[in-house]
């Protein structure tokens, strides 16, 4: 285990979070087409950062930095890390960030088609999830975590965790599609709003169920209880941000341009969504690590079928 590698992985994950905020600012400021040029901005490596170009070119600069950091992280992993699956994940991270850069370029070149923009926003979350996972896998708490004396006859936490992660991911895709199909001056597409709120309900139930079950079964285990508390708090915050975003969005069609309250609230909603996703992934990965699978699920299936039949 290398402490330096872990710290560097955390740095890359934090930089990625910052990149998501920078990207969200481009969308919220409606700055995606501040230049129709890519990879250069208006034919220059470093243009004058005026108007909306500040957001678009700023995003490109942060993205370039994260790309460089990911290359460095992969090199660091290849040098220090012996676990082959972690090395593979490092390679995957680099491929993801390259694909993400190309998708970003395609968004500009094709003048922001919905599918490409939404895919860019979704891949962003997947890449973030990868860097967060790398930070988890290289941490001391991960490597040294002893298996918890597992419980029998209960619904395995790893199932609930996996369901929560998938639900959140689907919700992120719907959210990205909603965001990119209606800028501030267009009416909100009703079906997507319904889908996103329906998705929020699914997340509340799955993630809420996960955190409450973790806290009931493993209150004393900080390794699990802490991310569970974090996830629950972020979920509540995220719902309030979503409500605020919706309310400000409702009153925006008369605005001359995207105004600050709407920009800050929607960007905060995107950022908090990424954090909910990341925290749930950390929690679920840790569940996989410390709660052995085989015995639990076999007990569960036996008990469940017994209970269902009897």
């Amino acid at each position: 285990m290398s402490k330096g590698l872990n710290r560097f992985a955390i740095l890359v994950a934090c930089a990625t979070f910052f990149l998501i905020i920078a990207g969200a600012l481009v969308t919220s400021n409606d700055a995606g087409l501040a230049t129709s040029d890519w990879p250069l901005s208006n034919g220059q490596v470093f243009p004058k950062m005026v108007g909306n170009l500040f957001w678009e070119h700023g995003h490109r600069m942060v993205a370039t930095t994260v790309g460089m950091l990911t290359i460095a992280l992969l090199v660091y992993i290849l040098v220090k890390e012996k676990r082959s699956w972690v090395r593979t994940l490092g390679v995957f991270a680099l491929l993801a960030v390259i694909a993400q850069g190309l998708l970003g370029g395609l968004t500009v070149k094709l003048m922001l088609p919905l599918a490409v923009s939404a895919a860019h926003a979704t891949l962003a979350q997947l890449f973030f999830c990868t860097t967060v996972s790398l930070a988890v896998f290289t941490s001391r708490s991960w490597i040294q975590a002893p298996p918890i004396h597992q419980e029998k006859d209960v619904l395995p936490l790893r199932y609930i965790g996996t369901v929560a992660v998938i639900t959140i991911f689907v919700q992120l895709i719907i959210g990205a599609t909603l965001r990119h199909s209606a800028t501030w001056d267009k009416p909100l597409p009703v079906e997507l709003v319904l889908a996103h709120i329906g998705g929020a309900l699914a997340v509340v139930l799955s993630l809420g169920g996960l955190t409450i079950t973790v806290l009931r079964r493993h209150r004393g285990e900080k390794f699990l209880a802490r991310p569970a508390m974090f996830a629950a708090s972020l979920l509540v915050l995220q719902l309030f941000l979503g409500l605020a975003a919706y309310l400000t969005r409702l009153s925006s069609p008369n605005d001359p341009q995207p105004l600050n309250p709407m920009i800050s609230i929607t960007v905060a909603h995107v950022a908090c969504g990424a954090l909910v996703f990341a925290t749930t992934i950390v929690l679920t990965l840790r569940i996989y690590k410390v709660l052995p699978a085989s015995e639990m699920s076999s007990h569960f299936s036996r008990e469940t079928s017994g209970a269902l039949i009897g």
Partner: protein
Amino acid sequence: MEEFAIDLPGRHVTNIERVRLTRRERVAAYLELTKPRITFLIVLTAAAGFGLASPRVDYLAMLSALFGIAILSSGIATLNQYAERDLDGLMRRTANRPLPSGKLLPWEALAFGVTLTVLAEVYLLVLVNPLSALLGLTVIAGYVFAYTPLKTRTSLSTVVGAFPGAVPPLIGWAAARGTLSVEAWVLFAILFLWQFPHFLAIAWMYREDYTRAGILMLPVVEPDGRVTAQQIVLYTLMLLPVSLLPTALHISGKIYFFGALLLGLLFLYASVRAAISMSRQRARSLLLASVLYLPLLFFLMVVNK
């Protein structure tokens, strides 16, 4: 054993065997899970929100919205009892609830609660409007996933719980208008502040129960009751001017103003009396005053709009 344990074996409730019940008793047990009295009060405040938001009340739309809100409130009450089944078993006041008494099994309550909540949310989303469903979600998350787990961790949980607790009139308002305005937030503020004297009175009356269950209500953390007494009076004092705002904002008229003033002073009187003696009986009177105050206030607001 007819038991489907979804949680740790060895805990109190999971070891309770189901009591044999007649069909009628079972229905009654399910009904009890929905906390009908609280649900009724919530529907009442939501109705006030709806009534105040509509220049001319569309009674069919109101009935439909209130139906959704009632189902949602029932679902949340059920999920809350599912989450707190162990604690409830430790308190005399709640030991007879359907789960700790073994009338129903945990998974039955969970399935019932999830079904009601999902049905209510889908109902609000599709048949009322997205904003009401979104507000409903904040109540679910705030109540079940923030307030409930915090109860055993900090006495500030009451403050956290007061947020989702004050949302029902907002849902009513949103159901009528599809958006929220300053007036709606005034209703929110009234309900938010009202909850403190109400809950602190309950917490004082049942402080031994709460101590036994490890629920950190203020009177548990601070048994001599000084801070509890101060807070009861302080929140009722704050409530008084806030309750007069509807007239200032032209939601309601002068009759409401004087009515609210009178009601507020009476409520304050009950609070001060309870705060001075901190006896169980005075706390009970305050509790009674609080549950009379709120419906009367909202009734006045609606009839004098």
